[in-house]
């Protein structure tokens, strides 16, 4: 139902050879997700049970300390806890109770496991159970792992959401459930879109209040807004929900295909779909075309970071005319990118995991026009003459949907534009 004739033909790439690597990973751990999850669910507190390293990581990844008392913190294990002089469980309970006394506005407390808490086998599920017996109904305590030994960067969100699935009320009503943290402004845009298409009721997960999770059941259709929530979606499937397979809503094409998946499920007539989406597609294309001259024909290299690499490379390739040289992804969840892989060019190398030094060797040999990488690598690569884009901006900035398509392209065009301006 979308006019895709202007776009490159779909590659016959169903079985892609994967370059699997092991070695040093220049990727955050799952704790980092707290940075955006606590903004989304403002009645929740995220308490990492870990070390000073965990606290330092979140503080450094968050960049700025906007809040005096942020809705996240770290219960730092000390040698007393490790030596068994203090009962770690008693200590944890004490900290949680003190914390909740300070913050009576908190309704949900997430205990977040870390590398050290998992290595010493501190049972946070038991801790949550114990605290719930004491604190419910005023506060509910949940737990999940954000540890680096178990999770990469955005998997933290997946684990947090999966921990909330058991709290979702059962329903048999036919409904759409959009899964994956989105900026409120983007959620509102999508909500209006679905309403205009006659699709509903629509729920977003995570909810804006952790205490009000949406219901789920056998007539729930799940549409993934982020490619990294595979475990959550499988948990929802176990509750009877069905996943709609679609590319992710990046760019005009991606957003249209994504909406179309829901429209098909709701049997929205083609003319109604076209009438609703045409003005938005038009607007998005106008916004995109401005940046195309900076990007078309250029070669892009993605280092693994947020799992967004595959859908974003697809967007840059199909809508901005870029050539992805290598697409690195921390791990490949085929189910979550089933609709994306066939849209990638056959010439691209797809790599899973990381051995950062070997990958940088390939990067230098390929000498791409743009490298998408983490903050630890960006300046050193710039100093080697490579133009870079920090990948974390793609996680912290609203980039989904028609109205953000131009912003998304601009993020990738900015390094080239900046280079063109500078005369120093």
């Amino acid at each position, binding site marked *: 139902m979308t006019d895709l004739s202007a776009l490159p033909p779909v590659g016959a790439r169903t079985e892609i050879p994967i370059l699997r690597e092991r070695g040093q990973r220049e990727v955050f751990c799952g704790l980092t997700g707290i940075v955006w999850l606590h903004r989304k669910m403002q009645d929740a507190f995220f308490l990492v049970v870990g070390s000073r390293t965990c606290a330092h990581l979140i503080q450094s990844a968050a960049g700025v300390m906007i809040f005096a008392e942020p809705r996240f913190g770290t219960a*730092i294990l000390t040698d007393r806890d490790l030596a068994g002089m203090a009962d770690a469980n008693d200590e944890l309970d004490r900290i949680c109770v003190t914390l909740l006394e300070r913050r009576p506005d908190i309704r949900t407390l997430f205990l977040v496991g870390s590398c050290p808490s998992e290595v010493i086998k501190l049972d946070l599920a038991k801790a949550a159970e114990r605290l719930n017996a004491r604190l419910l109904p005023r506060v509910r305590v949940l737990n999940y792992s954000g540890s680096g030994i178990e999770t990469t960067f955005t998997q933290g969100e997946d684990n947090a959401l999966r921990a909330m699935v058991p709290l979702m009320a059962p329903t048999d009503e036919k409904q759409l459930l959009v899964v994956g943290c989105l900026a409120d402004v983007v959620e509102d845009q999508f909500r209006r879109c679905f309403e205009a298409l006659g699709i509903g009721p629509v729920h977003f997960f995570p909810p804006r209040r952790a205490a009000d999770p949406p219901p789920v059941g056998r007539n729930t259709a799940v549409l993934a807004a982020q490619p990294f929530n595979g475990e959550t979606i499988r948990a929802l499937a176990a509750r009877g929900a069905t996943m709609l397979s679609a590319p992710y809503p990046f760019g005009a094409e991606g957003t249209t295909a994504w909406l179309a998946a829901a429209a098909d499920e709701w049997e929205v007539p083609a003319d109604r779909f076209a009438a609703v989406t045409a003005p938005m597609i038009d607007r998005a294309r106008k916004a995109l075309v401005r940046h195309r001259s900076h990007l078309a024909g250029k070669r892009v290299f993605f280092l693994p970071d947020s799992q967004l690499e595959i859908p974003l490379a697809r967007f840059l390739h199909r809508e901005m005319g870029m050539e992805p040289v290598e697409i690195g992804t921390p791990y490949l969840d085929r189910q979550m990118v089933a609709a994306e892989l066939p849209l990638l060019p056959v010439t691209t190398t797809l790599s899973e995991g990381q051995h950062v030094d070997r990958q940088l060797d390939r990067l230098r040999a390929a000498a791409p026009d743009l490298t998408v990488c983490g903050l630890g690598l960006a300046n050193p690569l710039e100093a080697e003459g490579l133009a870079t884009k920090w990948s974390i901006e793609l996680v912290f900035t609203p980039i989904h949907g028609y109205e953000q398509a131009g912003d998304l392209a601009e993020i990738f065009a900015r390094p080239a534009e900046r280079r063109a301006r500078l005369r120093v």
Partner: protein
Amino acid sequence: MQLTLWTYEGPPHVGAMRVAASMRDVHYVLHAPQGDTYADLLFTMIDRSDRRPPVTYTTFQARDLGGDTAGLVTRTVVEAYERHRPQALLVGESCTAELIQDQPGALALGMHLPVPVIPLELPAYTKKENWGAAETFYQIARSLLAGRVPPPGSARGERVAGRRPRANVLGPTALGFRCRDDVVEVRRLLEELGIDVHVVAPMGASPDDIRRLPEADFNIDLYPETAHTTAAWLQRSFGMPCTKTVPMGLGATREFIAEVAHLAGVDPQPVLGRERPGVARLDASQARMQWYARSVDSTYLTGKRVFVFGDATHAIAAARIATEEMGFTVVGLGTYGREFARDVRAAAAHYGVEPLIADDYLEVEQAISAAAPELVLGTQMERHIAKRLGIACAVISAPIHVQDVPARYSPVYGFEGANVLFDTWVHPLVMGLEEHLLQMFRDDFEFADDAPASHLPRAGGSAPAPTDQEPAVVPDALPWTSEGEQELRKIPFFVRGKARRNTEAFARERGLREITVETLYDAKAHFGR
């Protein structure tokens, strides 16, 4: 277990990274899980380093734990050595690896690499970043100088006649506060005195440079937080004397010059002779700040209440500068570093304030809020506190953020450092003449007296406007009559909080039940200012 929202220092292995990243030809293999590579961005983003820190991480995962994490260490050590060919290899672990007890340092030592392997044992659950930096520097010096330590009791050889005296400059590291420029400033001072800088370490030093440390005549302990352990060991083992003065501030710079001249056996007069302390003339010092502090515009700085917090070295120096060189009043002094807490306690006693030894951010915020200063001299953490409380702030110590690594030359040590500090501390305050105008026009209906200094933006538009309300609620606050409250509003905002607090304390002491205009002025007369 300790609840932490924001932390002043990272874990000790980040201190080790600061040392490794400052040096040349060393590499650090860190046994650590995924995620710990976040520390790289501290160097590449905050310090704007144009190279990756020389660190290779083993990145072990949960599935490795039952298997061969030790094998992962040895494979990583081999790969890192082959790829980077360092002159010395540091091997250590982060907090999680400490728990699985693979002993990466011992493993690497057993591999008989053709370069020195320096194992680092940095207890992550008891120690922090600065300690880790100091310990790493010490372990590097000890390992590389092993076998060169003279037997105890050996006399130190006399300096060859005719050779200029030599000093090592110890302590500057990446992510330290203004280390890059302080070193330049100190080098200039030493050169003027006829003293050669032999080795600067860790910043810019190679393992061979570390081996040359004992060839110098004495050491300059420029940053005790990172250098003191090493300097003390060099003193014990090689009989190398060491400076005690940190040249931050004009007075301290002069004392530093006298001290190094004495240690080097040179005449300080060529440099100190140009200094005339106490003289109000532009040419009375090599630092302009002496005249600036004495010029009449600076009168308004008199008695400004400042709260000082940082690492011990910078906090103690800042308190002295604030008192003796700016004419401020120190109303709070503290440090997050327990290693030098005793020195900070002594300094606090000297200024008659309660020392604040804390790494709990909320405790620091509470102390600042209660002291109601007009200026906060702190770390980038206090910048956030001050912004929220609507108080002027200048950063004087690590931890730093990207704006504390300016492009321009901006040392805080030496004569130029004294100038830089004068400018950076005065800038956030309401300017001298402007303060008079505020007083003159405060009743003008078009004049909003809670406006911040006109030359400052409203901090991104999101910061709260300065307010006279104490964020901490006073439990037994006394009621004000409406006339009293109105009169209070006429007092300029930057002293209003203090006036409110003093008046309420005054009223409480006298058992008054409400506060009137009379009480306000009685209290004003009582406290005076």
